[in-house]
């Protein structure tokens, strides 16, 4: 955190000053470790084993915050007797289908609801990253579930959890993670001792967690701990995702993602959502509890915002115009399609996949096989110059004279040359004022897309093709100003906020959304950012003039709420759990919820409220159901649906690992998304042979002095001089083993590429004793590329493409490689070296990666081919580190 989010880290130091204990878990000793009270070096890719150990420690010693757990979680709920755990199936859950490499969730359901799930073969949920749709939109679980408040029932969630994590003992944690037992126990003790009624503990992660083939389950494990300890919805608690880009949160809220529409509404799927009603019902699940009950209004209002007058109840608000998904259209699928010549044109908008995405070589070869490429950026980044200055030029894989890609580079306006809002990592929108005009041809994306749309509509004006109606009928009349006819960002923000179609009055809350076309809302969760016709995101009331919640600085969605689910900061009766930790509470005299923050609850719904049998939507939430977006108003320790790779987290080895999974016969995530493409060779892992060809584990992350792919830091002398060269950090032990010298050269080889770097021999890295053997890990920054003031090989070139099944985020935080002293070969010799390793490791182009590695299913090794497809997900942050 100190490394990648230094200014955020000031609050950790603040807490430390007040006596908080800081633990840091990271494969390498970073600037954060230097300031932490305790640092735990861990084998990359084993966090679930560590966190699972903590879960076990909590349950075995009954250290959970029992009142909280009973009232606010599904711990007491009884699960179907059909459910079989990884304990019984050697690492698989019940319902696994080796053909599709995915799960049928029927057996995971609560007792008596086995027939309820809409989810059968989840292969298509995976391909359209739609698993978490059910977590965010709520799986249909009727209010009344069978519960055992004593938590003794063998099939209640509490007991199932206990059994599931039974084998995550301190010894096992040591065996898997390489963390000595004493160290682990110190962490477990501190965490539990500092949680409960009087104290809370916070959990902070970055993409060190998300960029894994089991990334979502990492975070699930964290949630389970924080929920058991009663740290959710309470001040000083929670799980904080430190995301890596100024508006990456906004990029998921108002997504430019293939499977999402603004406000986490799913992109329609050609098979599942033939009609507007089917689409809407798949979101709101008629009869279900919670705020998604209103989603018909949100959906209708979005389409109204898109197509204005042309969107009417009669034509389902133009639902028919929406493009339909048929499966995986994610960025990595796109790149492979580019290589296969299926994609004509590619827009890169302030993004540098040639350096920033996994498998840089595939990225660049894909770009080299387009008809045209549009790059909009501040600088000539690697992705704009791949045709003249990429590693593939040296190897002869790209020959400028033979590369047909037509490239348009359009200079972009910087953050001070345009106005608009960023949404930072705590969901807070902050408006930026414009300081100066952009230089020369530089323009904002707002300008580019507004005018691109204008030109397209002019060109199509005469068209009678039905396909063009969506463009021609688009509501696209934004006021412009200035010499460049810059569209008004405030006008767009108004549309995002939503307005009453008749009067144009900006809406104040998403509760005002209507499903009859009388309201238009660009992104329903942002409704309120323009409340009372005022740009709330532009508020800049000094922190000195308001309380510590600082509710009048910027605007946070939803409804300017700073802490989600904050109803949980009060007990079931609505009283603060403790005076020290009071945040939001029920005021009986005023008859309303009050506190420091905007209560995340219907303001006047008393704690004592119990819904009538037939209630649905928000009305079905009881006065003590704090988790208002959940189908049952409860926090889920066990997820009967929604998480595609299991109702509970399970440790799987990374897709590339030098180790056999010590916990189960199942080696890696059996539902991970893999691409079998000649260019995407995955290094062998046990039980496959030849894993010893790539004996070392490598992990990559950020340096404080650089930003992501370097486009905004290697171009700035102030930053470039602070970390001027690509390097690799190795432990003295590994240096001695391989014969590496400090500041000498080394090159690293994976099944995809070979890169070189200067060597830093440092005691900050250590070998780990894991399952009876020594594992060496090396660390690399991934900021370097071939352009800019300082250049170097790109660490991301080493990675293959394997994705988390829930959100289709690549595993780019851990891989296997070999490391050798000296510089890498150049030209064709470089390809020979990689080829030689591929031969030795047995990685032919048509290699099938074994998915199931346990014979519990009768030993059949199903290849990870996937079935047909479907929608959504909250994707997570690109880079930086755990």
């Amino acid at each position, binding site marked *: 955190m100190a490394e990648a989010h230094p200014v955020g*880290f000031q609050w950790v130091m603040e807490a430390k000053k007040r006596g908080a204990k800081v633990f840091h878990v990271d494969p390498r000793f970073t600037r954060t470790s230097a300031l932490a009270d305790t*640092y735990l070096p861990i084998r990359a890719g084993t966090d679930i084993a560590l966190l699972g150990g903590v879960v076990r420690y909590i349950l075995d010693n009954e250290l959970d915050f029992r009142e909280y757990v009973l009232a606010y979680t599904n711990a007491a709920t009884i699960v179907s007797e059909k459910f079989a755990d990884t304990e019984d199936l050697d690492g698989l859950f019940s319902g696994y289908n080796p053909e599709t490499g995915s799960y049928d969730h029927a057996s995971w359901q609560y007792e008596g609801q086995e027939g309820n799930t809409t989810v059968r073969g989840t292969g298509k949920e995976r391909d359209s990253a739609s698993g978490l749709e059910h977590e965010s939109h709520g799986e249909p679980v009727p209010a009344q579930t069978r519960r055992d408040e004593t938590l003794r029932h063998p099939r209640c969630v509490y007991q199932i959890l206990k059994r599931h994590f039974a084998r995550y003992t301190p010894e096992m944690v040591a065996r898997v993670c390489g963390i000595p037992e004493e160290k682990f126990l110190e962490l477990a003790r501190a965490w539990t001792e500092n949680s409960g009624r009087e104290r809370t503990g916070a959990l902070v992660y970055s993409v060190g967690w998300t960029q894994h083939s089991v990334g979502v389950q990492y975070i699930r494990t964290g949630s389970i701990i924080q929920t058991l300890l009663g740290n959710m919805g309470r001040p000083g608690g929670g799980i904080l995702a430190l995301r890596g880009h100024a508006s990456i949160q906004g990029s998921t809220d108002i997504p430019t993602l293939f499977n999402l529409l603004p406000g986490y509404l799913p992109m329609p799927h050609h098979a599942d959502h033939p009609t507007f009603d089917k689409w809407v019902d798949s979101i709101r699940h008629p009869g279900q509890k919670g705020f998604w009950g209103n989603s018909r209004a949100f959906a209708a209002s979005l389409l109204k915002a898109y197509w204005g007058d042309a969107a009417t109840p009669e034509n389902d608000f133009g639902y028919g115009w929406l493009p339909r998904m048929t499966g995986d259209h994610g960025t990595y699928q796109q790149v492979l399609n580019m290589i296969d010549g299926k994609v004509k044109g590619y827009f890169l908008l302030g993004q540098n996949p040639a350096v920033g995405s996994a498998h840089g070589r595939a990225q660049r070869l894909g770009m080299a096989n387009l008809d045209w490429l549009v790059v909009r950026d501040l600088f000539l980044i690697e992705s704009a110059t791949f045709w003249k200055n990429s590693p593939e030029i040296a190897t002869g894989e790209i020959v400028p004279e033979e590369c047909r890609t037509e490239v348009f580079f359009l200079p972009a306006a910087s953050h001070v040359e345009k106005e608009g809002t960023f949404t930072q990592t705590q969901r807070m929108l902050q408006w930026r004022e414009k300081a100066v005009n952009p230089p020369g041809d530089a323009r904002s994306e707002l300008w580019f897309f507004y005018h691109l749309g204008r030109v397209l509509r002019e060109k199509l004006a005469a068209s009678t093709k039905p396909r063009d109606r969506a463009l021609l009928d688009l509501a696209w009349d934004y006021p412009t100003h200035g010499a460049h006819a810059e569209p008004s960002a405030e006008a767009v923000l108004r549309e995002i906020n939503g307005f009453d179609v008749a009067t144009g009055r900006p809406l104040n809350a998403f509760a005002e959304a209507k499903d009859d076309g009388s309201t238009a809302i660009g992104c329903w969760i942002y409704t309120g950012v323009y409340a009372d016709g005022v740009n709330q995101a532009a508020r800049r009331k000094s922190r000195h003039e308001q309380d510590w919640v600082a509710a009048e600085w910027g605007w946070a969605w939803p409804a300017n709420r700073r802490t989600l689910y904050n109803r949980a900061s009060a007990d079931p009766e609505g009283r603060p759990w403790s005076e020290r930790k009071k945040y939001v509470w029920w005021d009986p005299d005023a008859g309303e919820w009050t506190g420091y923050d905007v209560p995340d609850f219907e303001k006047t719904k008393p704690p004592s409220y119990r819904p009538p049998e037939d209630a649905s939507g928000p009305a079905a939430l009881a006065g003590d159901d704090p988790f208002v977006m959940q189908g049952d108003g409860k926090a889920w320790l066990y997820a009967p649906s929604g998480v595609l790779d299991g109702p509970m987290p399970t440790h799987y080895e990374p897709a590339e690992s030098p180790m056999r999974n010590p916990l189960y016969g199942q080696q890696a995530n059996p539902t991970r998304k893999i691409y079998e493409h000649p260019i995407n060779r995955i290094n062998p892992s046990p039980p496959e042979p030849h894993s010893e060809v790539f004996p070392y584990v490598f992990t990559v992350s950020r340096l404080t002095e650089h930003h992501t792919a370097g486009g905004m830091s290697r171009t700035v002398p102030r930053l470039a*001089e602070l970390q001027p060269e690509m390097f690799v950090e190795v432990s003295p032990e590994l240096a*001695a083993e391989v014969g590496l010298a*400090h500041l000498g050269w080394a090159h690293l080889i994976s099944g995809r590429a070979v890169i070189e770097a200067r060597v830093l021999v440092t005691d900050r890295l250590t070998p780990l004793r894991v399952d009876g053997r*020594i594992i060496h890990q090396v660390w690399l920054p991934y900021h370097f590329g071939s352009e800019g003031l300082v250049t170097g090989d790109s660490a991301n070139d080493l990675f293959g493409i394997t994705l988390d099944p829930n959100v289709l985020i690549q595993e780019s935080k851990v891989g296997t490689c070999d490391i050798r002293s000296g510089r890498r070969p150049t030209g064709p010799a470089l390809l020979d070296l990689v080829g030689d390793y591929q031969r030795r490791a047995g990685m032919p182009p048509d290699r099938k990666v074994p998915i199931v590695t346990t014979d519990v299913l009768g030993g059949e090794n199903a290849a990870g081919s996937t079935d047909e497809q479907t929608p959504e997900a909250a994707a997570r942050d690109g880079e930086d580190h755990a």
Partner: protein
Amino acid sequence: MPDANSLYGPLDPAPDAGWEAAPPRMGFFTDTSVCIGCKACEVACKEWNGVPDSGFDLLGMSYDNTGALTANSWRHVAFIEQPRPAGHRTPPFAGDPTGPAAGSPASAAVGAGTATDTGTNPGLPPGRPESAARMSTGPEFLGMPGAQPPGRGAGAESRSDFRWLMMSDVCKHCTHAACLDVCPTGSLFRTEFGTVVVQEDICNGCGYCISACPYGVIDQRKDDGRAWKCTLCYDRLGAGMTPACAQACPTESIQYGPLDELRDRAAQRVATLHERGVPEARLYGHDPTDGVGGDGAFFLLLDEPEVYGLPPDPVVTTRDLPQMWKRAGLAALAMAAATVAAFVGGSS
């Protein structure tokens, strides 16, 4: 009239430099125990003061690629990797199969030899491998690093302990500033805030200040010939603003304010750290009775000053200036006498 302590001893420098009704003396307190080594100070300083870059070479001095305070780096963040206990923290590598503690010393020894063109003179001279190694391992280190491969050196059997020291160095703005006193043009002068500033419109690059500074701070910019160093953002102070580095510092490692307040705050901080089991915490440059009359920019350190590249006990050269003039006078008289004798005495 000049103060009795004009050349040595406790002194409030601004009035002594002729500032009547001077504001309270302002300064820096840099608390290295909360420094995260982010280098925001280096960048913020360069942005505000328009300081040129100081070389694009990987120095191999841990994460320090700046190397030293120079005319082109007015803040410098030092990084020291030591396989040594860090206060109350659990040993980071306890129980790990680590080898002998020779990684840091050996790497430091290599780092000692690197160089980069800082664009300044003398800039960043290379160092002595042995004392570099010693910095990274402490007195127990024996033998020449680099003589044996990393990880095979002498020292503890395994390095369970480890700490990473970071410290943002800067001009000390001494109470008795030798650079200022020896400056023949009055380019270096004492501001009303008690700080020491080079006036770029006056400096003629005589270089005297560079030899006079006991901390090795001030330095000469090659292409321009003048001497440059931290001004404690004199222009910002005039506008009632905080110096750029202190304003940027994310963790309040760099604190700016009236020196008296800072000294109290620092004393309390040391006390707190001692309570919390960090006995190695000590102040540096805070004492008005030290060799330079106390620094306007002082530090909380976690190891001996020399480990951070600071002189252990600097004394301002002008302490002895009266003596020097006396000696020169005597020598001059001797010269005259000798001449007279040579001409009047003797025959031929």
